[in-house]
């Protein structure tokens, strides 16, 4: 068990290394010159071509863009080892500080959304498995398809319109306060719930057909109790899904964060792309890869801890 975790940690380090390499290369392959962007795209007054070239060159030197890709990578890794994520081209502030400001709000949103998603998903998933084949089940499945086919921005904007503009009890601002948390979290939760419903329903139906369920029923246990029995076995695939959802929430909440003006990392990354802010993007991507990998590791550890059989890697066997 300890060895298993050790292997997992080693694999994790390997993943991070490969990812850092690929990320670094890709970010630099993307079009656009950060130095040019920094000089400005004001279209206000034309530069004298020679002055522009010399300023550009000066700036590129300053930003460390003139070296070879390899030397740039080496210096990045070098500063990383000193726990330095570099300085943003665009804001001239420490990337670590900027990410540090935004990371908590992203995790807060992702965490809350996850709880909502799981609550809705488990509740409806269980109900729809228990009532499988009834009109309720059919309605739930139709709703799931519906929710899964409507883009997040539509749902987000409609909710914002209804709750902020029409009813006036949601504040639109740029603050990451608790009073502003619930709506984006609810939206993300709603969007993610169908997946949980599907997994819980399918796995629970599978478990409810097992002999131990019949055995428990034959001992006079109530059907609620029996569902609880089965749920303990549905727990493992659900945990896998939880981990996957969480990773997608922290790395992929760009749309929701921007619609609800939630100052999280999604917005940061988007700005990083638009401004070609290499250090910011690299820092962001690295933090993402690390988070994802750590979450995977935690899921792995939870498995070892929760599954008394601990025999085989079952984590991939999430049945849809």
């Amino acid at each position, binding site marked *: 068990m300890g060895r298993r975790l050790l292997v997992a940690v080693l694999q994790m380090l390997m993943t991070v290394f490969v990812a850092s390499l690929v990320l670094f290369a890709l970010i630099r392959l993307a079009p656009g010159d950060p130095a040019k962007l920094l000089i*400005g795209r004001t279209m206000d007054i034309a530069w004298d071509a020679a002055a522009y070239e010399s300023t550009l060159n000066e700036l590129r030197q300053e930003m460390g863009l003139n070296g070879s890709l390899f030397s740039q990578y080496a210096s990045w890794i070098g500063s990383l080892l000193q726990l330095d994520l570099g300085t943003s081209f665009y804001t001239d502030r420490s990337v670590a500080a900027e990410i540090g400001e935004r990371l908590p709000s992203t995790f807060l949103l992702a965490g809350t959304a996850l709880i909502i998603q799981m609550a809705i998903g488990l509740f409806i998933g269980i109900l729809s498995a228990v009532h499988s084949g009834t009109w309720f089940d059919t309605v739930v499945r139709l709703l799931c398809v519906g929710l899964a086919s409507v883009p997040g921005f539509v749902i987000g904007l409609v909710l914002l319109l209804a709750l902020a503009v029409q009813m006036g009890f949601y504040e639109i601002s740029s603050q990451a306060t608790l009073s502003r948390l619930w709506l984006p979290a609810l939206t993300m939760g709603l969007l993610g719930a169908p997946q949980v419903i599907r997994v819980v329903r399918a796995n629970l139906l599978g478990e409810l057909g097992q002999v131990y369920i019949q055995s428990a029923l034959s001992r006079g246990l109530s059907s609620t109790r029996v569902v609880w029995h089965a749920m303990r076995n549905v727990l493992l695939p659900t945990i896998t899904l939880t981990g996957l959802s969480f990773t997608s929430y922290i790395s992929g909440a760009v749309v929701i964060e921007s619609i609800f003006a939630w100052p999280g990392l999604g917005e940061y990354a988007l700005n990083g792309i638009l401004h070609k802010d290499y250090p910011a993007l690299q820092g962001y991507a690295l933090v993402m890869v690390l988070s994802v990998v750590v979450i995977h590791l935690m899921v792995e550890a939870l498995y070892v801890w929760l599954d008394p059989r601990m025999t085989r890697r079952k984590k991939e066997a999430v049945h849809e």
Partner: protein
Amino acid sequence: MHRKRMIWPMLVLLVLILGACSGNQPVTEGKDSAAPTNEPASQTDSKIPEELVIADQEIAAALDPVQPLTSSYLVAIGAGETLFKADPEGRIQPVLADSAEAVDATTWEIRLKPDAQFWSGKKLDAESVVASLERSRELDKQITPYIQDLTFSAIDESTLQVKTARANMDVPLNLSSYQTLIHNAEASYDSVEHMDLTGMYAVTAFEPQKRMELAINENYWGQKPTVPRVVHEQISDEQTRMLSVFSGNSHIAQKMPVSAISQLQAEEAVTLSTTPASNTQTVYLNLNRPKFQDAKVRQALAWSVNREELIVQAAEGQSFPVTTWLSSNPAFAEARNAVYARYDLERAGQLLDEAGWVLDGSGIRMKDGEPLNIKLMTWGGDRALGETLQYQWARLGIQAEVQHGDYSLIETARESGEWDAFIEAWSTFGEPFTLLSGQYAPTGGGNYGGFDDAKTNELLQQLSEASDEASRHALALEVNAHVAEQAPVISLYPRSQITAISRNLEGFVDHFRPFENLVNENLKFVSP
């Protein structure tokens, strides 16, 4: 039996979800029928707000005015000031300067406002202005084109001397750009406490790229504003910005998309400010492409553009047609219809026929077995413009392909030379010579297509040497018209700036430069 118990809370939840989703339907319909009632407005009835909230696509990332774009936000929000500024009519007015006088062709003397001072109470003297401009020159790359030809020195405490490298430069105009914001060069700008500017509002709290709070600067030298506090907030999503004004959470929403105009017009609680800016939406053509080397083809493209339709489709009617590049500048308004005065598809067709591009059976213009096609690159909010242009050119038998994407794609294409056409909107406000040579001189930074025309160059030379205002104006118009005839670029219309303003806010001034006068001393809240 417990199954039934569990189904009821479920139903309630379902109804709630459905209710929330369908909630907007009747209300939007209500808006269409222009129902007079409106909740957010009635909310603000009861008391006058203490703070003015401005929602913007992006706010400052730092406090130091030498950081890119920071000075623009500081000027806009009323925290920082320049020596001069442009008024809404396009005239240059003194701000921190008291007066400016051209002593000779290369020397200007600028007198400062006698009572002007920084937030800290430090007096604004000529030394501190020079120090501020020199600090910007050293640390801010973007200021270079404005002051690279200028040398500053203090004559006495309140007089500044500016030497220019070229004759007849418009120094006040250059010193009205936001990059020349005057700041205390001795301050450190690493925190709110260490800032020192001159504006009517002083920064009290700041979260980079999130929120900036300001309060009235008690040491302000001029007329103090009435609204006690201002908040500048970053809300990146345009729709959300709009909703924040609708909900009353903010009072001004900047940089609204064109597509939002109809929604803003339908909303009772906001007024709409649409100011055609002094810039021109322009199709730049790559003259290195053989098909565009023939002026007739370029002229045909220009004739076949139906600008009226374009403005309806791509700018929701919030602009006016401009056929020559410079005429979006209020000072050259007479040249708006100088060349392609009307939409003339027939003439365009003739020109193409003359150029050898003839219609084949399927309605496509062909020459030497090649169809006439244009790859038009657009970015930002110009997708609709590109799409409409494409449709209009298709009427002429041109196969246009729109490629909409990030600006960097245009940049990359420009570097490689692999492009046909793209749309950009350069400012037309400034010194005519600088503007025109930037666009049409062979070395101009905005001459993307490689336009090199003997007559144009000669006219530009004359323009640079002209010493009196009237002849400069006349020469500028001549260059402008000549270039439009040659059509290395196709001018369309000035891009509008759209701002949504809450109806209970009074005193907002439309301005063609987005960074000026966003916050002015006359803004006040009223009961609608």
